[in-house]
Structures are given as structure tokens and as C-alpha cells.
């Protein structure tokens, strides 16, 4: 496309750029602020001197957080969860996406299965039955409780199926001529051709696994099995002072140290920040096929 067309008059352009810059700042600022808080002294933080630069710089908060076994534990659990959960998700996604991407002619039950999976997005039996099932299958308090119940991200299946169908049929037909079966077509032709999509989905499920908090909170039988986000949830909540007795004093003193909270929040962000460059590389691809299909 011809850049001339896009040239804005100087002032409009300037205005445009400033507004955008401000928006970017708006998104960046809170994160910087938290970072600054986490490196500031507690007194500076509580007296509200901290903006986006640390005041009375100190790494104490981080020292506390890192000395905190519970935090470290839950951090590892979250990592483990990502490492195990992502492959499972991806494998199932691929295996389901392929049949659903076939034409009605090729796979007559396609429509049925399509709805079979989509319904699960629309309906759920509620927390109790869900919990009971997981308990019946003996997963309560087990690591796999964080993996199996959500093993099939249906929406991703749809994305992948769609992208499969954007791949020219000719290739498959040619392969089929040479007697290639479904497995061959899937693994030899489709997958290699949809690497960017796969990459996107992988990163997405990784992020979502990292960000899950509710299931950990409900399904684990002891705090030392909480994934990081669940742990953070319990850290962020404050006790209801109406129920305080003198014996809760210790608790009162533990909660809500602003800088330490900031440190924990920031550490929880780090993995996201690390994979973020990759995320955004594949981002557009992922989005396009996700929503603006055809």
C-alpha cells in the first residue's frame, strides 16, 4: 500500500501520536507503579511517595517473598501445571480439531460431535456436581485435578479446525491419492502447515493455565497445593474485622504489607512477561483466524 495515502497533516499526526503514546502509557503505568512499589521501603509506600520510581530503594520485599516457602511452592506448582497441562491440551485439541475440520461427506458424524463439544461451553451443572464428579474420579487434592477437567479447550478446537480448513484441499487430496490415511494427512501435511496457529494456541493455553485460580482454590485440600494464582487470591483477601478476636491479632499483623504484595504480584507476572515477545509475534495470526475467518 502506498504510504502517501496514509500521511496525516502534521498537527493531526502529532495529536494522533500523542494520544496513542498516552494510551500506551496508561497500560504501562500501573505495572511500573507496582514494580516501583515492590522495590520501595514500606514507609515510603504507605506514605504514598512512590510513583513509577522506587523510593528508598530496597529489595527487602523480594527477600521476604523468596524466603516464603509457600509462595515458592505454589510458584513451582503453577510451572508444573503449565508444563503438563499445555501438552495435554494441545494434543487433545489437535486430535479433535482434525475430525471436526473434515467435510460432512468425509465424516458424517461431524455435526453431531461439533455440537457435542460446543454444548459444553453453553451449559454447566454448577459447582457442586462438578466438584462431586471430580471427587468421584478421585482427583480431589491431586495435581491432575488441575489438568484433566479442563483438558479440552473447546474454543481452541474451533480455531484450529477453522485454520485446518483454510489449507487448500488439493494437498490432502493428492496425499490421499498416494494412500495416505487420516493420521498421515494430519501429522504430515496439516500440522506442519499450521505451525503459527499451533504456536499461538500453545501460548494461549500456557497463559490460561498460568492464570487459573478458582479450581486450585476449590479442589486442593491444603494450601501448600495451591497454584500461584490461588495462593495470591488468599493473600489479597482481608479478614472481616467483625469476626476478629484477640486471638486473630497475629493474622492482622501478617496481612497486607503493601510492598510485599506488590513484589508477589510482580513475580507472578514475570513468566508472562518472559513469553510475551513470542506471544505477540504469533498474536495477529491467532486473532485473525480466531475471529475474522474467511
Amino acid at each position: 500500500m502506498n504510504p502517501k495515502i496514509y500521511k496525516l497533516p502534521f498537527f493531526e499526526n502529532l495529536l494522533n501520536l500523542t494520544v496513542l503514546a498516552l494510551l500506551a502509557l496508561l497500560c504501562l503505568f500501573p505495572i511500573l507503579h507496582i514494580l516501583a512499589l515492590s522495590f520501595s521501603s514500606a514507609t515510603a509506600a504507605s506514605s504514598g511517595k512512590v510513583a513509577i520510581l522506587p523510593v528508598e530503594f530496597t529489595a527487602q520485599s523480594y527477600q521476604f517473598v523468596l524466603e516464603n516457602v509457600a509462595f515458592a511452592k505454589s510458584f513451582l506448582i503453577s510451572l508444573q501445571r503449565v508444563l503438563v497441562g499445555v501438552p495435554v491440551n494441545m494434543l487433545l485439541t489437535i486430535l479433535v480439531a482434525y475430525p471436526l475440520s473434515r467435510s460432512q461427506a468425509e465424516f458424517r458424524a461431524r455435526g453431531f460431535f461439533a455440537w457435542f463439544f460446543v454444548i459444553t461451553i453453553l451449559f454447566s451443572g454448577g459447582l457442586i456436581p462438578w466438584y462431586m464428579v471430580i471427587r468421584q474420579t478421585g482427583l480431589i487434592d491431586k495435581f491432575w485435578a488441575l489438568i484433566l477437567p479442563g483438558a479440552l479447550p473447546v474454543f481452541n478446537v474451533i480455531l484450529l479446525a477453522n485454520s485446518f480448513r483454510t489449507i487448500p484441499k488439493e494437498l490432502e487430496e493428492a496425499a490421499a491419492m498416494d494412500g495416505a490415511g487420516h493420521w498421515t494427512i494430519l501429522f504430515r501435511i496439516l500440522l506442519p502447515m499450521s505451525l503459527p496457529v499451533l504456536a499461538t494456541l500453545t501460548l494461549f493455553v500456557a497463559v490460561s493455565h498460568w492464570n487459573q485460580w478458582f479450581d486450585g482454590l476449590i479442589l486442593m485440600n491444603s494450601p501448600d497445593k495451591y497454584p500461584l494464582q490461588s495462593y495470591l487470591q488468599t493473600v489479597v483477601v482481608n479478614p472481616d474485622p467483625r469476626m476478629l478476636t484477640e486471638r486473630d491479632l497475629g493474622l492482622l499483623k501478617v496481612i497486607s504489607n503493601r510492598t510485599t504484595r506488590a513484589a508477589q504480584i510482580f513475580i507472578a507476572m514475570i513468566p508472562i512477561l518472559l513469553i510475551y515477545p513470542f506471544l505477540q509475534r504469533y498474536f495477529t495470526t491467532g486473532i485473525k483466524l480466531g475471529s475474522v475467518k474467511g
Partner: protein
Amino acid sequence: MRTRISGTKRLSTLTALFLISILILTSCSSPTPTAPPPAAGQAEHSTDIYEGLNLVVPNRYDPPIEMSSVTSVDATVKFLEGDDIHNNIWTRTYASLLGINLRYDWVVDASMYDQKLGLSVNSGDIPDMFVVDSAQFLTYYEAGLLADLTDAYEAEASDATRDILSQDPIAMKVATIDGKLLGIPLTDASVTSASVLWIRQDWLDRLGIPAPTSMADVLEISRRFTEEDPDGDGVDDTIGLAVTKDLFGAIASLQGFFNGYHAYPGIWFERDGSIVYGSVQPEMRDALLALQKMYADGQIDREFGVKDINQVTETISQGECGMEFGVWWNPYHPLNLSQANDPDAYWQAYAIPSIDETPAKSQYTSAIASFLVVREGYEHPEALIRMVNFWTDNIVRSQDDNVRNLFLGNLDNPDVVLYKYTPVVLWEPTAGIKTGRQLREALAKRDPTGLNREALWRYRIMQAYFEQGTKEAWVEVATNGPNGSVVILEDVLGDRGLMNRFYGMPTPAMAEKMPTLSTMESEMITKIIMGEPIDQFDRFVETWHQMGGAEITEEVNQWAASNP
């Protein structure tokens, strides 16, 4: 009793304290939730620790019985080296002395307990013995999940148990439905929820204000604290009265303020023959108007509507506020923080003054909020009674320091609070007041003989305050010392208190409608204080009655008729 000690421990710098609390935080964990009950081996091996302690031990189950339970830990629960929630002095003791293998099916963060209990009970996982709050107590009783403990109690309850449960007149009543004893109430001192008036004495002295004798004085003090720079730093940075967004509670509460106007928000009390709800009584009006004026004059934090307990704590520790209504132990936290920043800070407790000639009554509510219950169909309901006996006979009143150190916690290691590992913890309702009296007598005589180790330490601390000017020891003086807050509690127990007349299980309408009504109530109060016209209150009273208040009152009166 970690918390009391922590009052003095506060001396160490806040960072150090946070480090400690982090350490505590780290250890609130348990390796395997379904860990096997302490093996016989451990039991034998550990029996020698009971040598030389004269413990009253009920007949032991032989062979040992299994008992499953559930529990929660909070950030403060800390363990001794090698112990955890599944294997500690209590599990070992139950196993080796009582022959009860207590096993926790799950252990969750305290904030998750109710939800987790609901989930597991509703999905059929019912522990043999567990702790419930009043609402759950009723729900589970109606569902027929709770065993009838009447016979077991009659047969096995020890004298100490009976005595402690009788000290709180309502204890047994609440735990009994349809003539059946369905749970053991976890007793504590009810009166400790009564408010006292805390004032920065050093500020009073600096401004030369006499001690308050009426609510009028309180308003005056609030005004002068706001306008006259009581902290003498030449900056206009002080407010009159600390209030949190929760309005009521243990710290910076309005309860005491209302009581001063003979208004008793949130509780039920008798008025001309029938039981009425405090928050909708005319007395509220004047109190609200007064608060409204204080807010308008900047005597109440303009942001109190969102300031949670931690932010108010901040205000207090920064010395921006010199008056609050709170419970007797406030000096341990948060008031100690203001003295930490300003060595001369001293908060003096005053009984709630009155707006007129009739002395004000301080309101309080039964401390019995939860019960130990046994699953219907569990083979050994009496096992719970035996555990309770073990606690009441041996620990709760023990003057034997070795026993206390072994089962409650050791003052040398104040962060490890041993009794937090067992759900069977019944505090003696009058214990705190007794200790206070002993201490004051000891001080007057200058003779600490007869005090147990913990009390003796409090005595020494006060001695350090009076005889070597260690002002950090004020926390102990302001509570257990002469003219301390505990003295006021004695009067509250006398004729200067008003106990919530309703102490039963939530009535049907209450369970259904009270949450909404309470939300309305706190909104109404907050908004009026922040300046909305007072007829908001009249409107609230109307809607309150329409939206179920009348119905609830009806039910409460019926209940009261059958529970004189």
C-alpha cells in the same frame, strides 16, 4: 497465648515482625492431607514427654479408634521442627493418651473453610468430628447430619467441662435443639466484644482536657483533637475519631459511640416487654446526627467509607488520630503502633460515657459462634466429650507451666501456638477478667507470688513500665494494669453492659433476609454520616420492616418466649 505476648514483642521493629510473620506464613502447610495417623511407634516414643505431669486422663480407647476431621490454618499457624498439622503434640496426645487417632481429611486456608466444608459435606464427605458456625449447625441439623450428644455428655462430661460450659449462661442453650445436645459450643469470653473508649492520654494532657465524663465531652475532645494540633507538630494533620468502612468490629468501631446514645445497633434487646432490633430504634437518630456533624467538621476521615482496617491502622500508627472506640485488647494492636512511632503515646481506656444522666451500657454479643459436632452414625460420639474433658481438666485452667508449655505454647517461642492444631479449644469465659484481677492485686501488693508463668511475665512487664520508665510496656498497663481496660469489662459484666438478647440459631426469615437488611443498614449509616439527610434513617426503618424486618422481629420474639 501468642497474641498477648505479641503485645510486648511488638517492640521489635516492624520489619522484623514481618519477617517473623513470613516465617509463620511459610509453615502453614501440610505434606500429605491424608497422612496416616501418628503410628503407635511415635505414640510410645512420645509418652515419656508426659512424665512428671499430673494429667487427668480419661480411660483410653484400646484398641485406638479412628476419628476423621477437617480444619483450617491461617497465616499465623506455625509448627515446631518436624511437626505438621497431621502430626503434632495434639494428634500424638490424642493417640497415645486417649486412644483416638485424629486424622484431618483436609486443611485449607481459613478464608476457604466454609466453602470447602459446604462442598465436601454436600458431596457426601462428612467428617466424623468438625467445627461449624451457627448457620451450618442449623442446616446440618435439619439435614439430620448431626449426632445427638446428650447421653454421651451426661455420661462422660467432667466437672470442669460442665463448669466451663455453665459459666456462659447461654452456652448449653444454643447447642441444644429440641431437647437434644447436638454440639459442644466453643466458649470464650463474651464480654470481650464490648467496646471501650480509647483516647490518647498524652494528647488530653497536652491540651489540658479533663477525662471525658459524658458523650458531650467526647464530642468536644474530638473537636479539639481535630482543630488544636494535639500532637504539637504545628501541622493540621489530625482527626477526631477513627472509623473503618465496616463501621462496627473490634477496631475503630462505632458500636461504643452508639451505645453512648443508648442505641444498640445490630443486637436484639428487651424494650417494654418485647424484643426489638437496635438499629431501628429512635436512639440511633441523635447518634447519627452527631456523627454527621463530626464528618462535616472534618473530625472523621473523609475517606472512612473505603478505609479498611489496615488503612485505619496506618492512620493510628502515624499519630493522625487520638480517639477510637474498640475492644479491650486494642493496645496489643493497632494502638501499640502509635506508641512505637511516638514513645510518649499512651492510650487510656474509658468506660463508654453517656449522653445523659442514665449511665451508658456497653453492648456485647455471645462469643459462641461455632460448635464442635459429630457426624450422625459415628460409632464413638463420646470420644469428642473425652477430648473436651482432656482440654478442660488439664489445660485450660492449668497453673502448671510445664503443661502449658507442652500443650498451649512456649513463651520462649511465642510464634508457635500449639493449641491452634486442635479444634477442641474452649476458653474459660471469665479467665481474662480473673487474670486481670490477680495482676492488679499483685501490683498493689508488689508481690507476684501465685501468678502463673504467663501472668508473672505480664507483672514483670508492668514493673518495667512503672519502675524503669520502659514506656513500650504501656500495652500491658493499659489493659491488665490498674485503670486498664479489663477493669471496665468487669463493670460491663455487671450493670454497665447489655448482652444481645437473641443468641439462637438464625431464624428462617433471618437466614434469608438479614444479609440484605444488614447491607442496607451499613449503607444507610455510611451515607447519613457522609451528609445525606437524616430522614434517610426513617425511610430505612420503614423499608427494614417491610423487607422482612417485621417478620424477623416476630420470629425472634417467639424464640425469646421459649428461651427466657
